[in-house]
């Protein structure tokens, strides 16, 4: 049991990093923004990381290159695409389609630059040395991934609970009112995209350092658990918040609860995939993710129509 829990933590850490970066941009729009391009800019950053390592820059410096690339690409997507869409007040589907387009563009460009896929990353073997701890055998890089994810999570949780989270929530409710009463929402959103891109790139590099192989559909494999974690956390968060009596309700606790649920859901999802993969021989990860999403959407309140048609049970 403890062994399974421990061996799920590296996956949970990656799910958490992906979910934090996806969730930030998702929370910038009232109906949610499905920023799938995040997977694409992650794979682009991994591509650059690979080139940097091959050029002899060393792993820490190469990670820096990848993180900066992710941040810059995130910012470019916000300024070049999403800002235009927000100004035009386009539908959520248009955001989704454009984001899909970008995901494919980034993925293909990286595939072209890296050559034949799957590609093995030339990383020295020291980082995959196994460390025995309570019956589990995790590698050095897996422990580092878990530590980095926890640090990022704590920083982001404090940001969400603090003024930044309050501002982001305000922009989500009404960008127009925020511009009128507080400041420029475009600056805040640019910052959100920058941080989100950087975290996505960091998560992507750590994931690829663990597996030391870049697969054909790495971008999609990275982003799908992210939105499942975010949808689950938002749904469960909504349900839990509805149980709190109105006079005890606090927006700060609400925001903290949701970001805390990112951690819990990432962990639960990682355990679930780990257990199912052990029981059933082949890879059924996406089937599990679909099952979880269906369950969450059925019982949660996220992603629903504004008004349910007659005959649909709420």
């Amino acid at each position, binding site marked *: 049991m403890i062994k399974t829990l421990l061996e799920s933590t590296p996956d949970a850490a990656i799910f958490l990093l992906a979910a934090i970066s996806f969730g930030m941009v998702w929370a910038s729009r009232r*109906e*949610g923004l*499905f920023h799938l391009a995040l997977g694409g800019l992650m794979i682009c950053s991994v591509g650059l990381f690979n080139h940097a390592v091959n050029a002899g820059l060393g792993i820490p410096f190469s990670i820096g290159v990848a993180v900066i690339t992710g941040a810059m690409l995130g910012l470019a997507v916000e300024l070049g*695409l999403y800002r*235009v*869409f927000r100004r*035009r007040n*386009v*539908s*959520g*589907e*248009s*955001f*989704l*389609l*454009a984001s*899909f*387009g*970008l*995901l*494919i*563009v980034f*993925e*293909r*460009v990286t*595939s*072209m630059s890296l*050559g*034949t896929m799957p590609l093995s990353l030339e990383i020295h073997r020291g980082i995959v040395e196994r460390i025995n701890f309570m019956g589990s055998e995790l590698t050095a890089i897996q422990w580092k991934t878990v530590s980095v994810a926890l640090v990022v999570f704590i920083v982001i949780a404090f940001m969400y609970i603090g003024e930044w989270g309050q501002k982001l929530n305000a922009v989500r409710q009404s960008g127009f009112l925020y511009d009128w009463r507080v400041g420029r929402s475009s600056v805040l959103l640019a910052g959100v995209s920058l941080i989100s891109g950087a975290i996505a790139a960091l998560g992507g590099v750590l994931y690829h350092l663990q597996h030391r192989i870049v697969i054909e559909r790495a971008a*999609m494999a990275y982003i*799908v658990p992210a*939105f*499942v974690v975010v949808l689950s956390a938002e749904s469960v968060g909504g349900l839990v918040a509805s149980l709190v009596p109105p006079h005890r309700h606090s927006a700060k606790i609400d925001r903290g609860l949701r970001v805390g649920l990112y951690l819990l859901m990432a962990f639960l999802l990682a355990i679930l995939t780990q257990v199912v993969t052990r029981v059933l021989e*082949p*890879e*059924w*990860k*996406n*089937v599990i*993710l*679909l099952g979880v*999403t*269906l369950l969450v*959407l059925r019982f949660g309140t*996220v*992603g*629903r*129509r*504004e*008004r*349910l*048609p*007659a*005959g*649909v049970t*709420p």
Partner: protein
Amino acid sequence: MNYFADLALRLALLLNLALALNIPFRWGGRLILSQGIFVAMGAYVVAISIVRWDLHPALAVLLAGLIAVPSGWLLARIAAPLSAATFALLTFLLALAGMEILENWDSLTGGRSGIGGLHNLFLPGLNASPKMSVALVLLLLGLLFFLLARFLFQTQFGRAVRASRDDATGAELDGISVIRVERDVFILFAVHSALAGALWAFALPRVIPEYFDFAVLSLPIVLACILGGGEQPRHALLGALLVLALDEGAQRLPTTPEVRADVPLLVVGIAYVVVTLINGDSGVLSTANRFKARLRRYM
């Protein structure tokens, strides 16, 4: 000759799938990113029932259409409470999970190596190759559904679908059951996609999961519907033709052999971004009309 047969087959498939998606997407405002799975369902039902159960090809195609009915109904049940964007995302997940099932459920689908051994299709009285024969049958199917869509567009049903998209509450107050309308739309979509897949299977050397991949099949069809822009069935046809032209152009770009496989998909990705950036999801015809109007103003 083989090239033209291939081109005709791709065109016929694209036309059918764009027509099928046009109704839920453009009329009903419901974007489905898992069309490839419905096509796969049709193809696999045909392959399994002919190769393993020795069923007559016509009955196998009919069975594929019948099996699509409950799957369309199920999709409508799932879609009912969800917003358009969330449903679209869910269908994306469905596409990925569906591919996993096709690849991993060896006893049913034959896994990655798929199912082979389907008979070639020859049309009586026509000296056409098997691929051309399938293309012709697919074109006939497309023509039937095109006429049906044109007819439905002007009927009470067509208006109800569009009303449900524009204002579901208003439509319900007007006596339209949004749930029933969506159910019928999804069933129509599923049946058409599965029938197209069932016929396409006869032109494939083996029915393998690769052909139904999300990026290879579903994405270009959605692009066709966006490029076409309008609600009318002819817009879907125009979109399909544009996607085919785009794909053909991409394959002829001067590239190195290493990156040749990536280029068509890259072009599709760029088209997604450019089209949505220029014109939201209003399509090429709408842009052309706007351009014409501006030109008239200056002249």
